[in-house]
């Protein structure tokens, strides 16, 4: 028959060191006289308590003092919490700590990198965000219509209709109309140039189309300074910095009075950022 005495070990330890209250003493004595389990535990405890009492100087030598973690554990044990809360609170605290560590790490990493540090880079060159924000800024290029006698009259008329739209910086509408003109007059470099410039002012997909148009102009006329300048801007917008640098270098060699100095300046900025 197994022992059913509640908190048996506490009674045994108190009994062994003579600390059991008088009113409980006889009840416990009467119990262990008939209980083998309690008697075995009493014998074990007698030996342990006797040894601790008489050899304690050796046993407890260098016993560590209570640390803050022990006090924390005592405080935690004292809290009146259900088992669910006892599981949930440490899990939630762990979750908060993990989120905190990850957030701190993220912000630290982000602040330690240059602006646009997470963006795509072309062969270790300038961060895309920096290029987009500063170097790829576009300026409106004034469109002066060509002399009527140098151009097909129909082409001249259609360009004359689109020119005010472009000058009003309504680039999307200008691009739509110029696209039809380029379709009808593919040899018109002016139409293609302002189509390309208009497309550069639009979104990413249009930038690629702009680059294609401007490249065609350069193929047809390698000395076309305006086309080369805006082509370089298009490359920068697309983070193709080597290609932009080539165009700017070529433009610089052309000694164009308007675009030449700008090309030199932009090239210097690109080189500085690369360093």
């Amino acid at each position, binding site marked *: 028959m197994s022992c059913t005495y509640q908190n048996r070990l506490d009674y045994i330890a108190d009994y062994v060191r003579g600390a059991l209250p008088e009113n409980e003493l006889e009840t416990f004595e009467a119990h262990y006289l008939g209980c083998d389990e309690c008697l075995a535990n009493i014998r074990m405890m007698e030996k342990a308590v006797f040894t*601790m009492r008489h050899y304690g100087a050796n046993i407890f030598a260098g*016993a560590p003092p209570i640390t803050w973690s022990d006090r924390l554990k005592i405080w935690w044990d004292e809290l009146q919490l259900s088992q669910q809360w006892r599981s949930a609170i440490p899990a939630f605290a762990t979750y908060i700590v993990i989120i905190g560590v990850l957030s701190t790490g993220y912000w630290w990493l982000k602040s330690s990198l240059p602006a646009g540090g997470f963006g795509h880079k072309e062969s270790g060159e300038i961060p895309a965000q920096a290029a987009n924000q500063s170097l790829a800024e576009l300026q409106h290029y004034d469109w002066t219509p060509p002399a009527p006698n140098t151009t097909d009259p129909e082409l001249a008329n259609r360009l004359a209709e689109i020119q005010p739209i472009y000058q009003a910086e309504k680039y999307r509408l200008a691009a739509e109309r110029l696209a039809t003109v380029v379709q009808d007059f593919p040899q018109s470099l002016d139409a293609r140039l302002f189509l390309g410039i208009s497309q550069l002012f639009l979104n990413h997909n249009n930038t690629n189309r702009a680059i294609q148009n401007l490249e065609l102009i350069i193929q047809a006329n390698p000395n076309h300074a305006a086309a080369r300048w805006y082509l370089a801007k298009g490359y920068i917008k697309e983070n193709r910095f080597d290609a932009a640098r080539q165009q700017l270098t070529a433009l610089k060699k052309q000694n164009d009075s308007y675009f030449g100095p700008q090309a030199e300046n932009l090239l210097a900025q690109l080189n500085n950022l690369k360093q």
Partner: protein
Amino acid sequence: MFIPNFIETAGKTRPIMIDREWIASRREAVKYYLQKKWSLSGDDLDEVLQDTMVAALQSFGNYEARNNAEPSTYLIGIAKNVVQSYFRRRDRHEHRRASIDIAENIGFFFPDETEAEELAGFLREKISKLPANYVQVLRLIYYQDYKERDAAAEMGIPVDKLYSLKSDALKRLRKLCKGDTRFWP
């Protein structure tokens, strides 16, 4: 161990008899009781133990489990009568209250002092594995003989908490000692 027969009376279960075998099986428990409670040792202990066992064997037929008394309560009553008679015969009207000295205790619990010292080394190793607050409780109460209230003040914790810590520390200590034959022969 002998398990006495039980009878169901008014919804309660109680033993109805004890026998010689059960009484004989209690010899070691009675011996410990006499040593612990009445501080008997040596020839005194042997004589009182023998008288108690004989008295129990001669009178167990009188056990009627009155008021649902356990057989061990009956046995402890016999031991008390025997030991008080023994003291009267020896003109010792009160049992010795002073604690038994270390030499007698070592003789009771250990074959010799060497084993006690070995056990001290064993306990030192085991206790060092316990958390610091458990070690503190054991040190204050079982080595420095603090009362629970004083130990709680020393550790800066409530008394209730100290009782709980003490209880846990004892359980851990028992668990650590469980496999050792010196504790559990």
